Structure formats: C-alpha cells, structure tokens
C-alpha cells in the first residue's frame, strides 16, 4: 500500500503555496481556459450513439411488445392503432432514456435522435402517441453554432462550428437475427388457438380438417416476434433460426 503523508507547511511553503494559488487565479483571470458552451445560442454536438428522443418506423415494427416488456420504467405502452396493430407509445414523463427498447427491437423500428432539450408545460402532454413518433419532432432551436469538445494531449477545448447540427441519426444497419416459430410438441397442443389470436402477422392459422384441427405456421410470413411462444400455455412452440 502506497501511503500518503499529509503535508506540513512551514512559513516558506505557506507563502509559496499562497503565491501558487494566486498565480493560478491571476493567470486564469487573464487567459482563462473557459469551457463554457453557450446554450441556447449554440449547442453541444452529441455523438451518434447519444440517447435522445425516439423515432418510430411502423413499417419495420413487428408488434412484438418487447420494447414494452423490457422498459424498466414501464414508459412504453403498446396501443392499438386504427389498423389493429399494436404500436408503442412513449411516456416521456417516465422514460429514462436507457435505450433498452431500442436494443431490444428486433425489427429495428425504433430509431434514435439527438433531441433531448425539451420542456413541457403540461405533464399530460408528455405521453407521445405512436402517430407523433414517426417524424422528427420539432423543437425550439435558438442555436446558430454547434460546439464540439476536442480533447487532445494537452487540454479540453471547444471548437465552434457555424451551422445547425442535424439531430436525426441513422444507425448503421445491423445483421438481423431472424427467427421463426415452430411447433416442437404437437401432441401437447390444446388447439386453443391463442397463438393464432396473438399473431400479428397472421402466420398462424387454424382450420377444421375433418375431425381434426389443422394448425399451420406460415414460416414465410412469420416475423419471429415470439409472442405465440410466450403465450402458449403448454409451451409447444419454440423460436428457431430461420434458415435462409
């Protein structure tokens, strides 16, 4: 263990350290290393991975509920859209911007933005319905420049660039892991058709076939949301990798 010894000042050291303190103060008063960014006149340019307000793309959504399930703050509620599909809504009065939802979204329907400086005058307005999440939100912007923090070997300095920072972010496309639902234990199936009811893509269908019920999973339309697997009370279904 490296031991620290408290300094013991004699008169000389006292004067010296007084002088050192004053020297720093004078130096900074004359040539300050100011690091202030002048919000709202300018705004900090955040990295692309910054977690701000979310955007939503209904085309990519598979209504798998995973964003809602994972949300630690229960800020995401799925709401039935006019086309009878369930889409997420976000209550920013609860959202903690952890982006667990974005990381969970298997279809890539949730997209990040760098919007984060928002004030509401009514707490009920903070619930953002799906239909508002699709386009970039507009915020009041008074900035004319954006600031980039530059850190080099010597110091942190601010680099000011004229112009507006684009707050929309396009994340690089990731290789999607595509899953499909299959029945692994048909003999346990109760033919309760809960899977069919829960299936948003319509891949699971049932039909009467003589004195039997024929359950079908259309593996081409199945989007692998996994809800049927989760809801099946006998656990006869399983998600497996889609073979390409």
């Amino acid at each position, binding site marked *: 263990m490296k031991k620290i010894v408290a300094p013991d000042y004699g008169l000389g050291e006292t004067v010296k350290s007084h002088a050192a303190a004053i020297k720093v103060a004078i130096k900074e008063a004359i040539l300050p290393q100011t690091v202030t960014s002048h919000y709202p006149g300018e705004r900090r340019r955040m990295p692309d991975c910054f977690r701000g307000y979310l955007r939503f793309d209904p085309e990519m959504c598979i209504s798998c509920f995973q964003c809602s399930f994972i949300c630690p703050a229960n800020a995401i509620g799925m709401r039935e859209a006019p086309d009878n599909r369930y889409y997420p809504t976000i209550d920013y009065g609860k959202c903690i911007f952890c982006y667990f939802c974005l990381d969970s979204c298997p279809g890539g329907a949730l997209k990040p933005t760098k919007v984060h400086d928002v004030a509401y005058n009514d707490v009920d307005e903070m619930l953002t319905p799906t239909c508002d999440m699709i386009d970039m939100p507009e915020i009041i912007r008074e900035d004319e420049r954006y600031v980039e923090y530059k850190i080099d070997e010597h110091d942190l300095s601010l680099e000011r660039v004229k112009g507006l920072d684009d707050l929309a972010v396009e994340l690089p496309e990731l290789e999607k892991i595509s899953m499909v639902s299959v029945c692994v234990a048909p003999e346990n199936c*109760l033919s309760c058709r*809960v899977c069919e*009811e829960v299936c948003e893509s319509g891949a699971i269908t049932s039909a009467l076939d003589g004195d039997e019920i*024929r*359950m079908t999973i*259309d593996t081409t339309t199945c989007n692998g949301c996994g809800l049927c697997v989760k809801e099946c009370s006998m*656990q006869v279904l399983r998600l497996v990798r889609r*073979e390409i």
Partner: protein
Amino acid sequence: MAAAGKFEWKIAIVNKPLKDKTYFENLKETVIDTGICSRCLTCACICPVDGIIAAKPVDFPDYKERCTDCGACVRVCPRFDYKPKYGMGEYLEFVAAKSNRFVGQDGAMVTEIMMSAIEMGMIDRALFVGRNDEWMTEVFHVYDPSQLEMGTLTGTKYTFATVLKDLKKAVLLSKKGVGIVGTPCIVSGVKKLQKEYPLFRERVKLVVGLFCTENFHYEELAAFLSEKGVDHNRLIKTDITKGKFIATMEGEEEPVTFKVKELEEILPSGCSVCTDFTAVEADVSVGSVGSKPGFSSVAVREKNAAEVMDYIREKGYAEFGGDAVEKQLEFLINYKIGRFYVETAEEEGRDKSL
C-alpha cells in the same frame, strides 16, 4: 431448422355431447351443474387462458369473452365420462411405516415419500396442500425439507384443495419432475392429464394418493365448525378417530368433538358420488387406516413409487411396522361405495317422483 414454407400439425377434436354449445358449457351442464364435479380442478389446470376458477361451484366467470373453446377442459375432466373406481386397487405391497425424519399426522409417510423422491433427484418439487391462518387450503410447492418446518403442510385439511390448478405451472417450471399429493379425485385428474398429454406423462413423476372419504367446502365447514364452537383462529389440530371429529384449540384443554356422521349434512354432492377411497390410480396411496396408531399405511402401486420406498428403506428414513391390514379398510371402502348407491338411488327416486 425450419425450412421456408409451412409448418403444420393436427389435433383431434374432442367430442362434445351438446354440439351447439361451447366446451365449457358442455362441462358446466354435464358435470358442474349436475353436481358430480369433484372440484379436482383438472380443468383449471389445463385451461390455456387460465380462466377457470375454484369458486363454489367451479366456474369460468367471463367465458363468453375469454374462452377459446379448445375443449381441453372436457378432454381432461375425470368426471365428464365418469367411470367410478372403487376397492383397494392393485398394489405391489401394502405396508405400515413411520417416518423417522418428519413429524406429522400418523406416520408422516406422505412427506417422507416426497422428500425422499426429491432427495433421490426423481423430482425437484412436490405439490402439497398447505393452509393459511384461516385454515383455508393453499397450494404449496415444496422443494426442500426445510420448508416443512412451519408445520401447516402436514395433516388433514378437510376442505377442497386447489393443488391441481398449479400443476401446469409447476410442470413447466420444473426441470426434473413434479410430485403431487392429492385425494383420489385429484389423482384421477392427474392420471387423465397424463393420459391425454405427454407433457404431464414426462414431468409428473410421482403421484401420491390419500385415503379419502370426503372433502368439504371451506365456507360450509367453517360455518359448521363455528356453530360447534370451534374458533379457527385458535385451532391447532384436527383429527378424526373412531368416527369422531376432534378439534384441539389453543388455550382450551378440552377439544371439541362431535360425530363424523354429523358432517354428512354439509357433504358436497361431488363427494357423494365418489367411490374411490384408496386412490386406486395413484402411484402410491397413503392413509392412516390399516395400521397401528403412529403409523401410516402405504399401498405401493407403481414401480416409481417402489423405487422411492426402496430408497427410504436403504437410507433407513422410516420405520416399517410390517404389512398393513387391508381388512381394516374394507369398512370405509364399502361405506363410500354404499353412500354412492344410496345417493344415486335417492336421486333417481327424486327424479321419478318428478
């Protein structure tokens, strides 16, 4: 694994007598409303939407909205197509035994068998019937002998248990297997489940049946007992010996006693049609009748149960008191069969009179 295209499987449709009604309505009309429902809750166990509840009588309150009409309840109901079982049934051995490890009613052999099965690794959980402070029954998943310390798991409960309602959950959570303890009707339910669905065949590894004459509805029994002066808040122990019901209460030296016969007035109709006293279909049946006081009679019927018994013997967990006497059971077996015939006759008579 899954090729592009279609994945198909087929399930046979279950017969329903009332064609234009849903399966649950079928069940309701043929079993529940006719009073032959034993309240074993096999239907509640299998119901995929978890809608059937252990009310009095068993019900699916919002089946109009929630029921998917899959027929599973009808498929597994042991009373839907009821063939009463009776007698002693087949068994490999019938012994009197007393656990050395556990204290309970009589020989505490139910506990011993289950705990040994867990110890052997045959099962990883056992479904017991416990009770809360109000003496209402509740399901208890036992994983470890230490859970028995609180002492509400052993002993007769006399009221209907909801243990089967939890079976599916237990089966799905279990990694090795599940053991279940129940009255003959529950055992029949489990056997029906096992017959219908491989899931239960694979996972329910041990079914312990109890000797049973009847069970009561909690509310009715509670009302009856309080009429007799039993305060369930202070109730410590109940027992039936020699045709007498004995309830010991905290702070009172003299227990309340009355004749068992008196209980017949609140006997549920489902029990009155039951003729199975010894849980004929169980893997092993346990009861107190047939052996000397302090011992349990154990009728080992299946191989898995025999393995457990061998294990108990090997470890010396139980003291064996020789063979149990089948003769002593005859009275109760016959009593139950007799009751059935009287009831049916009565009912038929009534029908005729209408």
